């Protein structure tokens, strides 16, 4: 009956350098504040954004970040989509394992982001690229 309002895209950003990772973080912080997230939740969303943006840069050589405001009934949320045309992730289960890293990282970026956010979807096809979509709802 009632149609859910269309998601509103706030920002479409490219991720090709460390500076742009910082920009993503700042825009995500601003959007989270606008939505009225608590300080703890703001920090969680910003940290997840930082992880996923850096993965896009480091593991895929760059890509894109989209920030949208979404609505579910009375609740509003922030949705972040990180997409790239990089090498993809051959074993998603392994990549999501705490402490597993193909490089010298802590291997907590992906699995940790999943815990920091309310929703987490990882799509990846080897040779084609990776799309990570995460959402956090206001309380």
């Amino acid at each position: 009956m009632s149609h859910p309002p269309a998601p509103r895209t706030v920002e479409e950003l490219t991720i090709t350098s460390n500076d742009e990772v910082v920009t993503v973080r700042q825009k995500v912080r601003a959007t989270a504040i606008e939505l009225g997230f608590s300080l703890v939740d703001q920090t969680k969303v910003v940290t997840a954004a930082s992880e996923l943006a850096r993965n896009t840069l480091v593991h895929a050589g760059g890509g894109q970040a989209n920030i949208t405001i979404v609505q579910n009934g009375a609740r509003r949320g922030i949705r972040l989509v990180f997409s790239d045309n990089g090498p993809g992730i051959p074993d998603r289960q392994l990549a999501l394992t705490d402490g597993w890293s193909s490089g010298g990282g802590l291997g907590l970026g992906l699995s940790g982001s999943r815990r920091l956010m309310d929703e987490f979807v990882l799509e990846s096809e080897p040779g084609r690229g990776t799309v990570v979509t995460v959402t956090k709802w206001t309380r």
Partner: protein
Amino acid sequence: MAVQENISRRHVEALLRDNEDGILGRWVQISNEPLRGRAVENDTRKELQEIYHAFLRSMEDPDGASELRGLLSDLSRSRARQGFTPSETAMAVFGLKEAVYEFVETDGGEEALRGFIWLSRTIDGLGLYTFESFTAAREKIITDQTEQLLELSTPVVKLWEGIVAVPLVGTLDSARTQVVMEKLLQTLVDTGSEYAVIDITGVPAVDTQVAQHLLKTVMAARLMGANCVISGIRPQIAHTIVTLGIEFGDIVTKATLADALSYALRQSGVQVAGMRPGRAAVRAEEA
């Protein structure tokens, strides 16, 4: 053809040698025109004279070319520092063509004209070289300044005999963290300190990269026989670190810098009377 070119070249060389005063004077005048009195004429004259002589030498001796390039780089560097634009600097070099041409015209001979074409091409090359070294010089200046800023923004302070602290403020990228780490370790050595406090009150978010840098710094300090305390972990940062799954293991953490100082003092056997550490609430949320 090659013989012909050689004859023309010699002709121009002779022209440059015989009319040094006149050409140089005109060159200085031309290259100073767009500068609107920014360079003292004497400086320009001295610089250009040296280049002029090196230019003449480079015609006789192929090895002279590197001396000429050196002088042109010096010119670029000094002008970059004085805030000239790259075109202004390259134009100063191109000005030599105009200065010489006036004398070629007076000469009027075919050899002089042909030689001038050769000279013109050579000067073009030198002008472009100046342009390139100018850009390189400016990039160097910018890199130096960035490094200085990094240094400035990470002060390592001695809190007490044997205790140093570094307050981290703002976004920690790899370059900055590297500088912080090196400086902290160096200060530990220089001051012979046993305790290092890393205060992250001013860091808006701690992700896996920042955490990894922190962990590495602590481990390196340990290898040097020092103990590290991390202070200023605010509630939202603590929540996030735990959710991410980062483990600080047996690293000592304290809520505030004051707590960390009193801990380090106690550990090193200093008695502190009536000290009640306050809990400073600092907000720095700029991601």
